[in-house]
């Protein structure tokens, strides 16, 4: 019941659209376009967007370029650590169909098979104007309650999980936890 209210409440959607916090996480070459987007000339803070080092308090994950399987593991872990609702913007042609890395052995070809993407930006590399346009579009979608990638992930979790397992092997989550065990304090 409470869940449904969260989804449909116009007031909450209005508020969410105006305080999208970005996880400070960059892949590939698109991270270069983010400092100009963030600083004085294009300044995305006027939309209420800031970047935060805390995954738990963030709403928006930017995939800023090509994704290798090793990075994709981190992306999935980060995405699953974020609280609902959460959104993803994919920059450039690499997450769409691997772009110029179409025959690379270490680049994920279609990102949408592994995590749900809300807004795609075409181009290689998209300029800050294009990123701002995507951010504004995402804000509009959030306000209208149409950015439902996080819900798609919950509903089709089997599908996404199957694709992830096919790429990394069945017990990849356990193996990643084993790697992180050194850093976990109890």
């Amino acid at each position: 019941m409470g869940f449904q209210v969260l989804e449909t409440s116009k007031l909450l959607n209005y508020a969410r659209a105006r305080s999208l916090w970005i996880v400070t996480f960059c892949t590939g070459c698109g991270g270069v376009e983010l400092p100009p987007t963030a600083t004085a000339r294009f300044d995305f803070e006027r939309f209420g967007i800031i970047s935060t080092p805390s995954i738990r308090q963030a709403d928006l994950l930017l995939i800023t370029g090509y994704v290798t399987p090793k990075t994709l593991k981190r992306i999935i872990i980060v995405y699953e650590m974020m609280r609902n609702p959460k959104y993803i913007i994919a920059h450039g042609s690499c997450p769409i169909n691997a772009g110029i890395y179409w025959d690379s052995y270490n680049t994920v070809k279609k990102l949408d098979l592994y995590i749900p993407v809300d807004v795609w930006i075409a181009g290689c590399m998209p300029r800050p104007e294009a990123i701002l346009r995507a951010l504004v579009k995402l804000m509009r979608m959030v306000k209208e309650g149409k950015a439902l990638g996080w819900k798609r992930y919950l509903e089709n979790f089997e599908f996404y999980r199957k694709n992830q397992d096919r790429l990394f092997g069945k017990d990849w989550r356990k193996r990643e936890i084993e790697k992180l065990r050194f850093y976990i304090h109890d």
Partner: protein
Amino acid sequence: MIEEELVRKIVEVFSYVEAKVKRVRRVEVKVSREKLPEVAKYLRSIGFKHLSAISCVDRPQHGIFELVYHLWSYENRVHLMLKTTIPRNKPKYVTMINVWPNAFVYERDIWEFFGIEFEGHPDLRHFILDYWDDIPPLRKDFNHLEYIKRKYGVYDPEKEYYLR
């Protein structure tokens, strides 16, 4: 010229090496794989303290891997390429960590991308390719398209989706 002096010096000490001046500040030295460690130690002692990189060239038509140690001398300002070849099936070589410690990283990298085992290297683990399950990818006989189709699927224009 400092390059020719160096070549003369190296050939005097080791009569079996092939050394020549490629161009200004560029010297090439070719050694057989058994003799490379002692030549490397000598080069280190005459000023080639900096190992810039180790590159590996795959030559399947000759059945060899060519290892190139790129050395830089701060005193003479000369770039020296120390070259050797090793056979292509079950490639093995000795580690150079005791001569240049930073060979640790380069040897691990070559092990990952060409599959050359360096005996005496303490930590041969994957850098980038987690849980790699094929032959090393930078070998010439690695089939990119076949691997991609198996791993990531094929784009089907009729269904507009990636199939596996």
